[in-house]
């Protein structure tokens, strides 16, 4: 019994911090409809500033606590609401998730840019001294109660009791409970719902700050990844409460913290359960909640009676360009491609050759996101994982069977497709947020329990690839052979995706994105299409992973971690998730940007600035679902078009423009077409000129 308590009781502080996370997530979701992926980043900010102020700013612990937790944490919550989340309509689930993920990636990187790379260790504990054992529970030697334990438990209990009092017995709490049902109905009753929701964000921010500071002493070195992993534990707890019940979320969180420590104590060290199952226990609990809790399948169903007044998702920006401008753009792209290929094969220095080669490999991985998110309308947070499955399969086959990496890459693609199909089958009844959580859990499982295993990665540095496994001079130091291989793979994958996009499967996916109800109502099988696009996306990611590993000459577990899945989504969403050009621009742009920042001084020299750039780009997803760079491209080509070419080119030929050839009738416009919404430019009528087209994402 003493041993059991010795294992179980130390789990209580962990459970308490999970509970703070979980309650904060539920509070935000209930009051605002936002599942706040940025919660871990908010906690990290408070912990970071708390440690920074105590260690670099020489502030006393209590002052640092007040600044970082009482002031900055709620303020950050309010800022996120004011500038971002309140501007995203409830119907745009994907936009809210993407915005949260962007913040999760961007905020820690922004701290690095602002304060430089800090090695923050030995966080102080609030209230009680961390290294002092104050007493032994039940007088048992095995159950010491130290300062960290007391600080965590006392602060958590006080915070939760305060929250209960606030929600149950105050006017603000009453308004918050009403806003949970319908923010709009509350407004009709004369309540300033915006203020109420802002208050909820501030309280949730306070909880994030508290959790961040309480957790900090548990880590040897403060790292944002730790908070993301812990957030998944909190998500698991919140999911068992269907993101609605704070008591269940808090209770499950505490139990999870205790169970983890008990299992850690009793499981034999070095065994499979200890190495492979224990680290992913929270993810297993999360997956179980997603599969077993019926409420999680319908989590996004609007409960607000006035939900229908939300504006629809903004349409993809479209431009009506003149044929001349179209020709110029197409010619420009081909010319750029020709210059690029010729340069890569002739004069580009080795350093930059590697940059572009890496960009090509990334482009292939990113095309898998184009498939699953751009075409399939599903947000997968496991694309780096699938790339890793492909790469490790090819690496293992080469290492043990001597199989050529190019053949192994195809087998790896098949393996990644199988994993993707399993993931799709597991999450058939989930969509939007549920699917994002399922794929995040899968990514974490592979990152923490599969890739690091010696049977997969062989050594901590992964599998070193040898040139004999591929031949054809791919490992030639000048890198040109790889460039040719990369371009061939990229071209084949790109053409394949374009074909799918143009074909029947592409149209089915477009229909399903528009309305799954109507799509199944005309005979489209949504499950089959989803599994198919997952498989295809997994295969492409697997090919990209192998290509990337060949370029790096190593298959390394770290580069296929779950955190890269998040970064990949953010990068592609910025450049354009719905077009193949967007994925290629993302791949080349990411590596190019990473290379350019190496020339910048100090704190700007790492990847942090790159991540900040893309994360802020992805924050515009709600208003520019086509990608902010894609939006800007269309906008500027449109401006040049209007500046350089006459209106005649738009298909309304005036005298002389037709050169004596009879001119076709003008295409219908918003003014002439019945039922066409005002302010919308209509496309050409059939036969009015094939080039005069309405540019949609899959046509452009």
């Amino acid at each position, binding site marked *: 019994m003493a041993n059991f308590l010795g294992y179980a009781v130390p789990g209580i502080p962990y459970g308490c911090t999970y509970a703070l996370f979980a309650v904060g997530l539920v509070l935000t979701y209930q009051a605002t409809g936002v599942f706040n992926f940025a919660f871990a980043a908010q906690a990290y900010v408070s912990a970071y500033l708390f440690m920074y102020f105590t260690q670099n700013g020489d502030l006393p612990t209590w002052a640092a606590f007040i600044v970082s937790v009482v002031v900055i944490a709620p303020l950050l919550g309010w800022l996120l609401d004011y500038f971002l989340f309140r501007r995203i309509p409830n119907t745009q689930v994907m936009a809210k998730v993407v915005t949260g993920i962007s913040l999760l990636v961007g905020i820690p990187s922004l701290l690095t840019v602002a304060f430089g790379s800090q090695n923050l260790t030995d966080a102080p504990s609030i209230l009680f001294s961390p290294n002092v054992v104050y007493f032994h529970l039940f007088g048992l030697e095995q159950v010491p109660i130290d300062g960290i334990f007391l600080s965590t438990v006392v602060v958590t209990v006080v915070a939760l009791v305060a929250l209960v009092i606030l929600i149950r017995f105050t006017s603000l709490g009453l308004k918050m409970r009403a806003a949970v049902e319908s923010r709009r109905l509350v407004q009709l009753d004369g309540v300033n719902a915006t203020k109420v929701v802002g208050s909820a964000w501030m309280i949730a921010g306070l909880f994030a700050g508290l959790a961040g500071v309480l957790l900090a002493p548990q880590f040897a070195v403060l790292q944002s990844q730790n908070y993301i992993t812990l957030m998944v534990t909190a998500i698991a707890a919140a999911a068992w409460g269907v993101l609605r019940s704070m008591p269940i979320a808090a209770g499950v969180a505490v139990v999870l913290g205790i169970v983890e420590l008990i299992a850690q104590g009793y499981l034999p060290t070095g065994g499979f359960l200890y190495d492979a199952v224990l680290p992913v226990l929270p993810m297993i609990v999360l997956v179980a909640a997603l599969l077993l809790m019926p409420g999680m399948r319908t989590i996004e169903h609007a409960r607000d009676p006035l939900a*229908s007044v939300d504006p*629809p*998702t903004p*349409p*993809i920006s*479209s431009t009506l360009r003149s044929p001349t401008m179209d020709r110029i753009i197409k010619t420009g792209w081909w010319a750029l491609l020709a210059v690029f290929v010729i340069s890569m094969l002739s004069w580009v220095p080795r350093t930059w050759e590697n940059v572009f080669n890496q960009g090509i490999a990334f482009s292939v991985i990113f095309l898998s996101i184009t498939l699953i998110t751009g075409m399939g309308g599903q947000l997968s947070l496991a694309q780096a994982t699938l790339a890793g499955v492909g790469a490790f399969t090819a690496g293992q086959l080469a290492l043990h069977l001597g199989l050529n990496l190019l053949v192994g890459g195809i087998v790896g693609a098949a393996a990644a497709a199988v994993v993707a199909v399993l993931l799709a089958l597991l999450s058939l009844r989930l969509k939007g947020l549920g699917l994002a959580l399922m794929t995040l859990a899968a990514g974490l499982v592979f990152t923490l329990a599969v890739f690091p295993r010696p049977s997969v990665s062989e050594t901590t540095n992964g599998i070193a690839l040898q040139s004999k496994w591929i031949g054809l001079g791919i490992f030639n130091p000048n890198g040109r052979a790889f460039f040719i291989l990369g371009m061939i793979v990229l071209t084949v994958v790109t053409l*394949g995706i374009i*074909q*799918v996009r*143009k*074909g*029947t*499967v*592409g*149209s*089915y996916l*477009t*229909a399903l*994105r*528009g*309305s799954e*109800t*109507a*799509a*199944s*109502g*005309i*005979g*489209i*099988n*949504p499950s*089959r*299409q989803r599994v*198919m696009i997952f498989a*295809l996306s997994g295969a492409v990611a697997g090919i990209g992973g192998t290509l990337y590993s060949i370029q790096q000459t190593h298959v390394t577990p770290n580069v296929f971690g779950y955190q890269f899945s998040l970064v990949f989504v953010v990068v592609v969403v910025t450049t354009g998730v719905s077009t193949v050009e967007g994925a290629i621009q993302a791949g080349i742009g990411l590596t190019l940007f990473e290379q350019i920042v190496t020339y910048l001084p100090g704190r700007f020299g790492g990847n942090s600035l790159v991540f900040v750039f893309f994360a802020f780009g992805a924050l515009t997803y709600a208003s520019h679902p086509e990608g902010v760079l894609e939006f800007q491209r269309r906008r500027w080509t449109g401006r040049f078009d209007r500046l350089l070419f006459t209106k005649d080119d738009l298909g309304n030929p005036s005298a002389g423009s037709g050169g004596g050839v009879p001119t076709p009738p003008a295409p*219908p416009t*918003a003014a002439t*077409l*019945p*039922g*066409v*919404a005002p302010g*919308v*430019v*209509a*496309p*050409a*009528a*059939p036969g009015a000129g094939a080039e005069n087209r*309405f540019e*949609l*994402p*899959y046509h452009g």
Partner: protein
Amino acid sequence: MVDPPASWSVPQTTAPPTLGPLFGRRTQPGQLLGDPGPLLVVRGVSKYFGGVQAVRNVTFAVDPCESVGLVGPNGAGKTTLFNCVCGQLRPEEGSIEFVGTDLGRLPTYRRARLGIGRTYQRVEVFSDMTVREHVLVAERARKGDGRLWRDLCNLGSPSVEERTKVEMVLETVGLTAVADTPVSALGLGMCRLVELGRALVGEPRLLMADEPSSGLDEHETSDLAGVLRMLQAERGMAVLLVEHDLAMVNEVVDRTIVMDLGQVIAEGTFDQVMSDPHVRHAYLGRAG
């Protein structure tokens, strides 16, 4: 609301538009080719939402070529019943059969392929598609096409037959002029026609139209009624119509079923049910 395109104006005094040879007639009214039984049989269907009984023990049948109106005040359970028939909801009790097949375990898309076409109370369109693409994708889905390898081998282009059929449907519902317009640029009335065209191209044996006149003006509603009559008369298509516009119901249907609070309270010809005191009570209260 602007006038609809002339192509779908179907004056009652003139011959209705024809769907042509691609829409071969399956049956003649009163001449059921080897299929003497009813097309749709709903038996004792009940559906609960928690403590709310949205549909209670509803039983009715629809014959081939028959046009049946399903009317009732708001909250009567009409759309819930539609959703049960189409598979979007699973009833807790009762059974639904379509051409002799029990629909109980069939998913929505399988029911659609059996020949149930549907339009929706709240317009459900594919926002990234043009009008023509809507109809084309429905035609493909009806046939169960969609092999990935065909797309990869560039064999997914529409055939001449598909194009012809799509154009014919567009002309029937009067959308030829806006065929290449994205639906996001269309008004509500046009979107309802897009839904209708999308349902029609699948050659359904039963068209379930859920408040199709909502958002249409009087003239458009009248034209739509003409199209529905034409489909029934010429194509032999059964129509199950949920509609609040009772004038349209009177114009289109052969038989009317009235629901209130989840139950069928009257059934018969339009005039019969409208004179039923239960129906008057349901619509007008005790004063009625």
